[in-house]
């Protein structure tokens, strides 16, 4: 019974650290990584939830797999936009984040 709780707690910790990282980071690539980890944290909570009954609840597994695939799509598009913005404007930060260090 402790395995799900251990991982769910780790999921919460990952989620919170990465959410804070997303709020404070300026480089868009790091923001993208942070959001990916927020997603992993949520998915970890969901899969830990699914591991409680025996046999495991397959519905959260399906949700998480959908979430992983959607996450890759969003990440890929974000990276493509980032590369385009960097090629056009010479910065990997959003315009409002460019002034200070």
């Amino acid at each position: 019974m402790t395995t799900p709780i251990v991982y769910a707690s780790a999921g919460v910790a990952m989620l919170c650290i990465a959410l804070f990282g997303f709020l404070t980071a300026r480089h868009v690539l790091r923001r993208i990584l942070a959001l990916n980890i927020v997603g992993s944290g949520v998915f970890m909570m969901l899969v830990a939830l699914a591991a409680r009954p025996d046999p495991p609840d397959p519905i959260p597994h399906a949700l998480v797999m959908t979430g992983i695939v959607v996450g890759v799509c969003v990440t890929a598009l974000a990276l493509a936009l980032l590369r385009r913005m960097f090629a056009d404007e010479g910065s990997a930060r959003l315009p409002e984040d460019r002034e200070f260090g």
Partner: protein
Amino acid sequence: MTTAAWMEALLAAPLAGAVIALISGRRAAALVGVVTAFATAAASIALAFAVSRSGVLRYAVGGWGRPLGIDLYVDGLAAVMVAITGVVGACISVCAAGYFAPKPTHADLPSDKHDRAWLYWPLWLMLWGGMNALYLSADLFNIYVTQELIGLSGIGLIALAGGSAISAALRYLLLALAGSLLYIVGVELLYAGYATLDLQQLRDRIDANPSTFAAAALMTAGLLAKSALFPLHFWLPPAHGHAPVPVSAALSALVIKTGFYLVVRLWLHVLPGLAWAHLATLLGVLGAAAVFWGGVQALMQERLKMMVAYSTVAQVGYLFMLFPVASVPEALPGALLLAASHAAAKAALFMCAGSVLAVYGHDRIRSINGIGTRMPLTAVAFALSGISLIGLPPSGGFAGKWLLISAAFAAGAWWWAAIIVLGGLLSAVYLLRALAFAFLEPPIAGFGRAPWGMEATSLVLAFIAVGLNFAARPLSELLNAGAG
């Protein structure tokens, strides 16, 4: 055909159209797109009639039924949103058929983009299909997937403009992704608490504990970011202001409403059992702040498209002033009428701005002299949609605000009514400022030809916005047909 058949059509038609447009490529995409658009619009109106005749319907996709499977659910509220999307979406498609034509005619769409312009059609039909799927869904996680569908197609559409739209699209993407993740955390908490993702079952099982509150708060925060409620509106003006004209129209008129709809669905239909008076007041206060902030910013804009985009920030505020007075029966029809007339008027205004761009080559408010004589159709459309946005009679905006104001008085909270009136005055100021330059100054010579398709569409939309003045009663009846 039955309600169920129309629901199936509304899901499958735009998605099928999108994939056919994708495969058929540059030559036939526009044709496929316009045909699909009219078919989908017809189905949306048919669904509204079917619901008003035979009431709400629950439909188990795949035949499994909740909680294992995913259910669709249509009531008056969903039918109204689908119908708004259908009518305005058809008009936007007509406008886009001219705008994204193979010949470069528009200053804001560089000519080297024209070999990719056909990508508009699969993206736009996917967006439309995503909105229909969102309004018709009764499953929390399915709603997440539809939101991603909407978000990704919206970002692709914004990026079509290139240039400074790229960073706007990137900002929108990061915000939408963060919003989605907050929403998913909420879904996780609710699934942990109630072992279901179905809205109706949640409503029946919900009890007030901290985890449910946290779930509701997280989901609401995510949705507020997507519906650009003050102070989470910062991404909207650049994204909507820099996108191609039909895209700005679709995003401002329709996509913003999906977030609002979900907040309404969540708080009024799923969680009415929670004591949420403080949160409702907070939403109302944020709405009021949005009305003023958006109005003042719109007044300070130099470009017509940016002014119209900031006006959306303000108009979103009115919608959220529904929540503090939601207990009064007139409030919801009022807010929905406001949403419908804003959809029509805002799409019309963006198209007016697009026509001005096409003729003048720019949209600086100070130099759009003589629109009244050069482009009378656009000027009339601008004025009519302005009337609806300000809330002057007779217009859908007036009828909606009237209902909201009477709801505020019925709830004994006159100050909301005062804010609505003051906000109307503010929008009168910025719209009249632009109109003054358009009408009072003498016309200047030169420049291009007005795109008649866009002008005509904007006029049709403006007349719809005005004509919605008489829609209050049928709307209330449709909503009541859904109250099952």
